[in-house]
């Protein structure tokens, strides 16, 4: 249609001169590249080191797709029993599943196979690290606020899917450790009230371990989960383009603009180059650091287990939650209700603890919006110190997560520091409840202190380390005033207020509104307001006085 309008409109069709130009032009006139290039070619992206963790996660995912596809060429996801005949002597003649045998083959008889396995596994670890750090960045800077709440939810889904991807992959080689992980899944599934044992039967195709689980996990691992992750990543990035990237406050940055570098060439070069750097670093690690040496563990067998065996790090917190729950203290946590139903609360409560964390994560943008009643669009990020309560809560959540994670290594900690395992667990139980509270209080105070420090710097300038003596003997440190750009960075934040409980339309203050009012107080009561120009003026007058004294002292001394 557009072609016909061009000819009818008598506008001469564009002719390219170079060969590249001709090819590009051919493609453009068939599929319409121009609008895409117009939209993206010079799109602006803000630059900050903390913005790159999402990129790392994306690149890890690409590397996982690539290395995983190679692994899939040789991996045999079946549980039929074979006798190992490969070149790893200690296992020769041992009966094992085809899955385990093929994993050994990849490690020892496919040239570069060991590298691929290690690259895949290291990439999986970095993938989950990057996702979590990225989420922390989003949380602490308030980037999840309107209009980006839904993208936060997509991110949370990606976090969950990364766990599923990692766990399903870890289980594929069918060695002792991965089988033991599955055994725990059986135990967890069984704990679900009423239907648990049936769920376990459905998962394993009968009693644990059965003959089907590896094949089922395989389709989950190489198809279902990667497809879901891919779809989520597409939606995620699409929304980033729609919203445009957030930016930190600073001179020239407003809610209505984006300041940064254009995609072409600078941003594309930096981001594209960064992909190769991530790949290179992971390859270097995979070349030098052994991971998951499955040949040491042996094929899955329900009888042996190694002490001190840990799951991959991203699963540690689930394991830790199971560990710190007492099974029999102060009374038994296995409840037989009316002789009809057994409820293993010692397993269900840890599952609740994990679920609470995940639900809190998903819903936080709405919780915060409810407390602050802040429904404005936010394209400018908060510096974490300027949102003391949120930052405190984030650190509290990290402590909660961290305590669970550390709990999963409780036995290693105990042996390493020559403590009793029991004492370590008692301490962790205490920290599980009180650690987050303490962390919240401390972090919030630290934020407020940092805010006050910012005020000081704006009002009295930066400390230079130079000390001078005033005529009457007092020593003062010379402060250097900030230039207006630096100053703006420190004063450009929003001055949020406590919003006490409000009456509703009927003139009543509801219970939930009272709660909201109290939370709002917790959020903003001690807030530190940004310096105003008037305050700065006043401070300058004071300074002028000091400086004047100094100068007159200098002149009088030279006068002697």
């Amino acid at each position, binding site marked *: 249609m557009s072609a016909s309008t061009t000819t009818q409109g008598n506008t001469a069709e564009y002719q390219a001169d170079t060969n590249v130009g001709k090819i590009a032009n051919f493609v453009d006139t068939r599929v319409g590249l121009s609008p895409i290039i117009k939209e993206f070619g*010079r799109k*602006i992206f803000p630059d900050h080191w903390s913005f790159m963790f999402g990129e790392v996660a994306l690149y890890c995912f690409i590397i996982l797709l690539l290395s995983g596809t190679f692994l899939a060429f040789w991996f045999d996801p079946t549980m039929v029993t074979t006798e190992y005949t490969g070149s790893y*002597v200690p296992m020769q003649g041992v*009966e094992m599943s085809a899955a385990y045998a093929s994993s050994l083959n990849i490690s*020892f008889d496919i040239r570069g196979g*060991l*590298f691929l396995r*290690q690259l895949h596994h290291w990439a999986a670890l970095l993938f989950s690290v990057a996702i979590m750090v990225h989420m922390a960045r989003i949380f602490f800077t308030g980037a999840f606020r309107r209009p980006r709440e839904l993208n936060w939810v997509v991110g949370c889904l990606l976090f969950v899917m990364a766990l599923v991807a990692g766990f399903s992959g870890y289980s594929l080689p069918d060695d002792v450790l991965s089988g033991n992980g599955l*055994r725990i899944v*059986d*135990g967890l599934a069984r*704990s679900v*009230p009423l*239907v648990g*044992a049936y769920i376990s*039967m*459905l998962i*394993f195709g009968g*009693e644990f*371990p059965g*003959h089907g689980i590896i094949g089922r996990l395989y389709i989950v691992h190489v198809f279902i989960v990667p497809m879901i992750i891919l779809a989520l990543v597409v939606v995620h990035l699409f929304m980033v383009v729609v919203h445009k990237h957030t930016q930190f406050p600073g*001179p*020239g940055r407003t809610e209505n603009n984006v300041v940064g570098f254009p995609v072409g060439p*600078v941003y594309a*070069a930096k981001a*594209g*180059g960064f992909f*190769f*750097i991530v790949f*290179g670093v992971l*390859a270097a690690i995979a*070349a*030098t650091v052994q991971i998951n040496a499955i*040949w040491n563990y042996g094929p*899955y067998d*329900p*009888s042996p287990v190694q*002490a*001190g065996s840990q799951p991959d790090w991203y699963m540690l917190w689930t394991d830790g939650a*199971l*560990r*710190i*729950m007492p*099974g029999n203290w102060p009374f038994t946590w*296995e409840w037989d209700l009316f*002789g*009809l139903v057994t409820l*293993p609360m*010692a*397993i269900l409560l*840890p599952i609740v603890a994990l679920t609470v964390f995940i639900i809190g994560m998903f819903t936080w943008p709405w919780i915060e919006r409810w407390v602050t009643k802040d429904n404005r669009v936010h394209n400018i990020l908060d510096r974490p110190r300027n949102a003391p309560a949120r930052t405190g809560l984030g650190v509290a959540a990290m402590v909660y997560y961290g305590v669970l994670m550390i709990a999963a290594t*409780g*036995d290693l900690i105990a042996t390493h520091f020559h403590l009793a395992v*029991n004492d370590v*667990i008692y301490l962790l139980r205490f920290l599980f409840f009180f650690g987050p509270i303490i962390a919240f209080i401390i972090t919030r105070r630290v934020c407020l202190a940092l805010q006050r420090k910012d005020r000081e710097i704006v009002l009295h300038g930066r400390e230079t380390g130079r000390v001078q003596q005033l005529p009457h003997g007092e020593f003062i440190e010379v402060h250097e005033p900030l230039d207006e750009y630096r100053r*703006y960075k420190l004063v450009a934040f929003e*001055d949020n*207020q406590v919003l006490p409980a409000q009456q509703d339309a009927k003139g009543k203050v509801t219970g939930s509104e009272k709660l909201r009012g109290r939370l709002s107080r917790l959020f903003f009561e001690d807030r530190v307001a940004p310096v*105003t*120009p008037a305050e700065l003026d006043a401070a300058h007058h004071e300074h002028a006085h000091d400086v004047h004294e100094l100068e007159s002292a200098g002149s009088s001394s030279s006068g002697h």
Partner: protein
Amino acid sequence: MADHRDGLPQGKKGNLLDRSADEQAVFQDPGLPPHRPRTTDVDSGAAKRAERQVALLFAISIIGSILFFVGYFGVRVDGDIYSVTDSAPTAALRLQNLLLGGGIALGMLGIGVGVVHWARTLMPDHELVEERHDVVTEDQRAEAEQIVGTILDESGIKRRPLIRNTLIGAAVLAPLPFVGLLKDLGPLNLTPLRHTLWDQGVRLVRDPSGTPIKASDVTLGSTFHVLPENLMDLGHEEGYLDQKAKAVVLLMRLDPDIVTVTPGREDWNVDGIFAYSKVCTHVGCPIALYEQHTHHLLCPCHQSTFDLANECEVVFGPASRPLPQLPIQVDDEGYLVARSDFTEPVGPTYSQRVIAVNEMEEENGN
């Protein structure tokens, strides 16, 4: 903090105290700071040097890719990898992994670092500004609403509730067959959870050698990892692992002075030799650690601790139930055999467990 203005927020601004209009209250944005040139912007020598550095990094990448093939074809990992005595990787395999991986690493890093260096030193670093636009504008929204209205109107779905309601019903039911299909993922029969291969007269044999155990073999302080002898007849395709996962047992002799035995279980041990299920009652890991001086069994997974002196009561950790005891006796030839199967389901708890326990008690009572 000197500052306590208690003004209630205005309009839709939530809790924000909006003073943007007041010049004395907020600083005005000074705008983008002036651009500071880099050395490569002003010094053509520096620019030339940066150019050479980038080229060098790309050359390193080329060398890396060649290195990969040196490792691939140059290093021979012949014959048997890993000897029986030494389970460390052979030097050749390690070297090959290093060259293959190192080659790829250099190949990637050379490109990556080179391109980033290029971008940082030689591409323009002027910050640019782009305007943002609202995600939707109000007139777009109105237009879209109108279109949706038209669509609904033309479809007539609002005017014809009969169609609407049957469609909803159909749409709810249509996916159900696919949920139903999932039922055959596994048998929905819980009785196997109650039983193991143990039965009256089944010999206790060593794991993995399969040799039977005489009572006199079990000395104070020794532990035996035990299987039922009839497991040995089972092929791998006949549920060997499934049965093994339930039937594994730990056997040890305890000092008769320290053990308490509940009434009814007096004849479950053979002169202080006790057999307990090795499957943790928490979430099912095999119990592996026996601390002789405390007579505790420890589960390596989550550190549940069971007291052998007290019929494996839980003394610490997340398990709630003692390990089930396997009743044993001695057969005519002096070998240890089971007196019966376990009298309760082994392993982790499930909802129907209490029913199973009650029914099994009744059966045993008869």
